[in-house]
């Protein structure tokens, strides 16, 4: 048991760093479980893929906190998050969720922490969506420039070359101008 907890913790640490091997391991163990469960509950494989991905993102964000310790196994955590996500999805569709959970799981569900994790996740998703909306609105070359820097990890040198600035310093100044515009748009977007 102890060794399994250690393994979990190691995997989670690697997951936090976006390690491919660790992520693939978690995926391989848990995806079939979630898939099987969801299909039993009347979902499709696509539903399972969607929900599992969301649950993985929830877990990924949780483990970004260095002090984070999982109080249950990864398997239990992911499955519980998936169940909650599915429940919420069904509630949205006004379908009857009563048949969803059997007795044993009900006690587990009493624990509000899963719900809290999901709420934090939804809030963060909304926040990122607003950010992306703002990014879409700032226009070119700002949008591409910021994406090059933040999403594609390009250096200022590379960006200067790509966007035709004479030197990285000029590109950097442009980046700051873009950030200023983004800031205005973003906080307007949030105020909505």
């Amino acid at each position, binding site marked *: 048991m102890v060794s399994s907890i250690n393994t979990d913790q190691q995997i989670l*640490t690697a997951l936090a760093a*976006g390690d491919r091997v660790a992520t693939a391991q978690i995926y391989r163990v848990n995806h079939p479980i979630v898939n099987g469960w969801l299909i039993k509950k009347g979902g499709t494989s696509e539903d399972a893929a969607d929900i599992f991905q969301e649950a993985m993102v929830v877990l990924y964000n949780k483990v970004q906190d260095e002090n984070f310790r999982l109080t249950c196994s990864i398997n239990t955590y992911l499955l519980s998050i998936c169940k909650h996500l599915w429940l919420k999805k069904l509630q949205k569709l006004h379908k009857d969720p009563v048949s969803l959970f059997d007795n044993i799981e009900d006690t587990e569900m009493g624990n509000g922490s899963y719900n809290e994790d999901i709420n934090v996740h939804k809030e963060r998703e909304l926040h990122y969506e607003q950010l992306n909306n703002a990014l879409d609105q700032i226009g070119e070359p700002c949008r591409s420039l910021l994406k090059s820097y933040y999403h594609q990890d390009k250096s200022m040198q590379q960006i200067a070359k790509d966007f035709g600035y004479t030197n990285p310093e000029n590109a950097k100044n442009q980046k700051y101008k873009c950030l200023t515009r983004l800031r205005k748009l973003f906080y307007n977007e949030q105020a909505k």
Partner: protein
Amino acid sequence: MPFVNKIWETAEAYLNGTLSESDSVALKNLLNTDLKFANEFNECINLLNSLADSAKQQKFRNLLQDIEAENNKETKIKSLFTRIISITKPYRKTAAVAATVALLTSTITYWIVTPSIKKNNSQYNIISREVEHIKTEQKNQKIAIDSINKKTTLQPAPPSSVKYTGTGFALSNDGYFVTASHVINNGKFDSVYIQNQEGEYFKASLVAHDEKTDVAILKVDKKNFHFSKGDLPYAIINNKANLGSQIFTLGFPKDEEVYSEGYISSKNGFEGNEMQYTLELPAQHGQSGAPVIDANGNIIALLTAIGMQGESNTYAVSTKALFDLLENTPKINKIHFGKTTKFSKLSREQQIEKMETYTFSVKVYKK
């Protein structure tokens, strides 16, 4: 440091932990006295954190999708929990959705992982593949055996050693096909063969190529040759695809066809090359010339190169280069390539199945 005029520099330095001791003290004083500046500074910090975090999360989602695609294809599940995982990378606390103004009182160190460990010199690797003799021989033997079993007449496999391999795709059903110009060594070769899914070899000749854009058109020599029955199921279009478009490719990094998928990460390619796209798509040597297909089954580009190792950029030549080459090649007057796609409604698996007949390995021989 005049903080007010250089608010972004200050915010970045603050997050990177590169503010000098005296600047830190001065900044702290300013934040305590100038509420307007403190609010603005807080917004900057929040925004920078959010940008870094959302990019990081997006990367994680891409990784997940990648793993999902890989898993769907895989049949064997390897033993779990056996590999040792490195845990050396630093990671930083996720910025809370609502950060507080009292930033400097916190003793937490922030890292921005992505910008600080950036690689500068982007390198460019063409992705044709040089081949070992043994493999070719094995394949030849297999074909020999297959041909006995099938009792069909096959063109003999070429005798000399393969110099390069790449991937090609049909331009028209009657034998015209496209690959990257560097795959055929820009025309400097002894012979070129394509090898289809059944392992059959067909000799081909060069029709036209453009070394600069890295596109080549060839034609299978065999009379009345057809890749398959009927018209091509896909369209080759000349429109510039949108940033973020989902795309996939089929190619031959090994002797088996390999599927990979990704998205267009930049509308221009290497060093801003307008004839290229930059793709977020895993590619390996041997996939040069492979078609880049959008979700509706339109071919929009062909793979040409990958970035430096460790960098995930893949570069693809836009079909515009192909159309330009066609225009400048009067001897091809009537190529009937698909203008409408027949597989926009098919599932990805069905699309791949349809594509398989029209994508093949291109083998280039030199003495």
